């Protein structure tokens, strides 16, 4: 869990690709990464390790600067999905989730694995199509380790 934060922002016309990694906390300064004026924003969130309450606030202020953009959250780790579900506005109304991780757990081994759910494969506008079976490295069956009604709540919006 490195405390370092990194953000790479690439502009391609009116499209912006953003890759974030590390910790989003009280030290974050999103003003260094302007996104105003972009028409499409793709955010790769797979590298985010943690986000605290100050980070949540700064994220909302930042993402709201791109009200006219079409925003996509990609490879959302569980901590980001938790914020999307818990904090209205964390995923703005002009945003959608393209892929996100779902934790699986084996009671037998105590192992955990994160499975990527991708739009068009494991979920669509019609609902979830969960993987048939997930096993850990020892071959133990793993179960989805979330309260489905709570974790997938954002898909219903």
């Amino acid at each position: 869990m490195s405390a370092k934060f990194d953000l790479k922002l690439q502009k391609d016309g009116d499209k912006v690709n953003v890759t974030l990694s590390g910790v989003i906390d009280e030290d974050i300064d999103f003003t260094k990464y302007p996104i105003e004026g972009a028409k499409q924003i793709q955010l790769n969130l797979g590298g985010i390790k943690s986000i605290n309450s100050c980070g949540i606030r700064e994220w909302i202020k930042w993402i709201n600067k791109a009200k006219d953009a079409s925003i996509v959250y990609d490879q959302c780790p569980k901590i980001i999905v938790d914020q999307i579900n818990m904090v209205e506005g964390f995923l703005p109304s002009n945003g959608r989730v393209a892929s996100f991780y779902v934790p699986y757990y084996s009671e037998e081994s105590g192992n955990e694995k994160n499975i990527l759910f991708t739009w068009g494969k494991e979920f669509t506008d019609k609902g979830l199509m969960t993987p048939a079976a997930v096993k850990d490295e020892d071959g133990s069956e793993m179960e989805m380790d979330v309260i489905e009604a709570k974790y997938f709540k954002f898909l219903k919006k």
Partner: protein
Amino acid sequence: MKLLCKDNQYFEALADSCDGIDLALVEVGMEAPSSGFDKIVYVGDNVDLGRVLTLLHEVRSVAVVQRNQRIKNDLEYAQRLTQFGDQLFTQPMAVQLPNLEFNERVDFTSHMDKSKVVSKAEELIQRSGVQNVSDTLRSIVEELFMNAIFDAPREAIKKGWGVDYVRGKSCSFDFGYDAENFCISCSDPFGSLDVDYLLQRLKIVFDKGAGQSINFGEGGAGLGCFILLENSVQMTIAVRAKKMTFFSCLVPRWSSRKDRVLNSKSLHVVRYL
């Protein structure tokens, strides 16, 4: 001890050990005795967080515990707090986890110490051998750290206390676990927390939703304690005004994330004026 629960016989053994303590154990929904008891512990089935917060507003109310698999430990803890609550400020792990397997304290004085504190939390997780609590414990550490380093001194200044009285003193994290639970505690030397304001604030976040309750102005975001509750199955708040504020969160050690979320939450409050 007075018992006013739907299953009094379950609590009679506990009541015997609480002789001499002015504690009333009251079923959520029943009326608490109006006199004769200094402290009330409410017991209920799947009491939602909003109700927990409302019940703790009552000055004599010291805890709301859930009737689940942890109820015995929760009630024994409530009893220990009634008798030895002041020891939270000196030996927090001994009060919270009597059968402690591991305990370590980290002192910190500024924001620069955050990485030191986070490293200790990581060590705790490694040592425990549990994989699926990393982000949960990290969230708890983040919010407790910000409370102690930013919110507490800011509140002390707002109250007009100045901060000279804490010069040279430090905050402390205590990390520990026993066979069943992790415990992360944090204390600061300011004692500036207004418990009733905090409970009201938490109730607002619960009722309106986190997104509608964020403070976008100066100061904290106003979500920290809500995040602590989201990530723990039991929380303790203790304040000795102008001396110390103490927060603690309990997280089950050997459970799936799903089971942790399904656990309804208990809350204990210790108020020293």
